[in-house]
């Protein structure tokens, strides 16, 4: 039996560093927020024109044009919100130079919409966290289980958001409404995984009431470790396949899920369970 709980200081330092680094990066460089939240126009076209020609036709100051990876002629144009009429005028100008231009996607979002979605999602996250905390505390008869599960969950979400702050800074990866979905999946996965370890601990405690707390916790972690790893492997296989072979539009969404699943698996034996241990040890 591996004595996981003896190394808990190491987990605390590792988790602490990851969370602090995430927070630091988030405060310093923020997130690279997509138009879902800020409002703006996103326009994707296929044309033989080059980047400079596109830029000179659009003429706006705040415009970002990116060639889509792996293509010669597909461009993504992001700019401040423009109306359909404005867009069609620009399109006519494009057509004068390249009559075969194809529009793949055009979207315009007013600035108010995104903020509202974000706030409502945060409220939903808070409500479901409280509900889960109450449920877990009730099922395990002690508040500490619910609180620890939620702390581990918040830890996972911070690391996920922090990773996207880093990805945004270095690779320009944008955070969009899909990212919110990924955060929600991480949230539910994290608690799901934690509860499995807790459940085992509850059973071990019941069957060996006289054993010392360290052994009970270690036994619970040991006997759920293979299950945790295998469950992550099957989930990671699916995500990796979609990340490598799937469509481009969901690539970063899938990566976010991947990160979420990894930290969600890590935090169950190495964050939430040691927290329960600390609490119970001090109470005794």
């Amino acid at each position, binding site marked *: 039996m591996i004595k996981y709980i003896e190394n808990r200081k190491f987990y605390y330092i590792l988790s602490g560093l990851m969370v602090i680094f995430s927070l630091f990066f988030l405060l310093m460089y923020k997130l690279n927020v997509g138009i879902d939240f800020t409002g703006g126009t996103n326009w994707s076209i296929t044309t033989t024109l080059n980047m400079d020609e596109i830029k000179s036709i659009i003429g706006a100051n705040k415009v970002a044009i990116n060639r889509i990876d792996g293509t010669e002629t597909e461009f993504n144009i992001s700019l401040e919100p423009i109306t359909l009429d404005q867009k069609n005028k620009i399109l006519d100008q494009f057509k004068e130079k390249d009559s075969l231009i194809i529009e793949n996607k055009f979207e315009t979002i007013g600035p108010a919409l995104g903020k509202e979605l974000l706030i409502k999602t945060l409220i939903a996250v808070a409500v479901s966290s409280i509900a889960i905390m109450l449920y877990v505390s009730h099922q395990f008869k002690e508040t500490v289980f619910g609180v620890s599960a939620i702390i581990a969950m918040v830890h996972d979400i911070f690391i996920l958001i922090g990773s996207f702050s880093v990805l945004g800074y270095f690779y320009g990866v944008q955070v969009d409404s899909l990212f919110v979905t990924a955060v929600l999946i991480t949230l539910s996965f994290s608690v799901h995984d934690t*509860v499995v370890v807790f459940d085992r601990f509850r059973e071990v405690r019941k069957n060996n009431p006289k054993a010392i707390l360290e052994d009970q916790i270690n036994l619970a972690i040991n006997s759920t470790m293979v299950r945790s790893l295998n469950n992550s492997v*099957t989930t990671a296989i699916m*995500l990796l*396949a979609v990340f490598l072979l799937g469509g481009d539009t969901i690539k970063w969404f899938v990566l976010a899920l991947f990160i979420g699943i990894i930290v969600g698996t890590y935090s169950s034996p190495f964050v939430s369970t040691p927290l329960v241990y600390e609490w119970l040890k001090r109470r005794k």
Partner: protein
Amino acid sequence: MIKSRLKIYYLIVIVTVVCFFIAVPTIPVKFNIGQYKIDTAIGGDVIEANFPIIGNINKKFEFKRGLDIQGGVHVVLQADMQEIAEIDRLNAVESVKNVIERRVNLFGVSEPTIVTSKIGVGDSAEYRVIADMPGVSDTKEAIRLIGETAQLEFRTLYEPIDGVESPEGLIDIQGLGAFLPTDLNGKDLRRAEVVFNNSPQGTDSGPQVSLSFNIDGSKKFAKLTQDNLGKPIAIFLDDQIVSAPTVQSVIADGNAVISGSFTVDQANSLAIQLRAGALPVPVKIIEQQEIGPTLGQVSVKRTFIAGVIGFILVTLFMFFYYGKLGIIANIALSIYVLIVIAIYKGLIPGLGAIVLTLPGLAGFLLSIGMAVDANILIFERIREELLQKKPLGIAIELGFQRSWSSVHDSNVSTLITAFVLINPFNWNFLVTSGPVRGFAITLAIGVIVSLFTGVVVTRNLIRVFFKGAKVT
């Protein structure tokens, strides 16, 4: 005991067969079982079957493809409620929705989704109509079609009289003069349609919109033409003049024609707008999305292939790690995939077909990876019991019993999250946006179905396949 188990076997087989036929593409099936004749064409589109007792079943099952897959237009309109009293606003936005729905249907969009949403509370609340129009290629026309108020009015020329102050509500048109409102407007219409009227001289006058009034409108129009013989009657749309023909004779049959320099599309839109009625309040577009049809199809194909490869890898993993038990888990997982696809295609009557988007597809593939979790939990437990030298049959039963509380508690936690996000009571402070709710519904479906396949199906399959082992 034996009887109730048999019932569960039948249930599993029936569910699997039904879901199989709904999930896979069309396969014609014709055969006889004893006295029952089965003559069916089952598959991706239609289920038509003649069942004894139940009778005829004829239902279309198909994927509802989201805008990002099919291409189309997504528009969010905000209603301008300044002029409307607070208590009437909900009604107003509802009638905006109805009018837009009529317009979109008349435009020929198949399966549009049009919903209203209210953001905030009290006087500052905002009222919105969200329209998704899949498969629309002429986006320019579609957006113009639904965004215009389409307030049709008939006005007469105002002749100023010296010393008398001008009445209110005049609209001044340069070169033509000022026009007075009348009591005849869009509400008096019975029909509006596009006609192509070639003039007697043989010159093509282009498309026109012919109007016919209802009884009330006909009377008003007759009186109007009588009073204005030899003078113009102007037709206004949203305070803009469309045409101002001069009245040649009294028109008593309630028919009129709007001619302008319309293109065919413009004339069509106008006719649709007039038929569907005017919007009770002005709206403005605050968000719009146009997606070309090719982008999504390429991505779907690639994601689908990725999913198939991922599925094969997961089943291989389960087989190599758990051997015979792994095969059973793989059968259960295949049943999981069939059931979920069938539900997406509209298996559950109250739920209807689930709109399938690209992220939704990714979420479904993720759920395949997670659906084996219950199996893994149970199998690990069985292994533990075997390590304690218990006979296989007992180990299996104990494995199921002892892992149940983990399976139950962990899945309930996930369902709690899904429940809050689905927001079934429509609480205003929670998420009301479509995509998040859609995700939560698919999450809940995944959890519930994986519980069924991971626990019920697996357990019964094990009882069949491990008959050699003594099951207590």
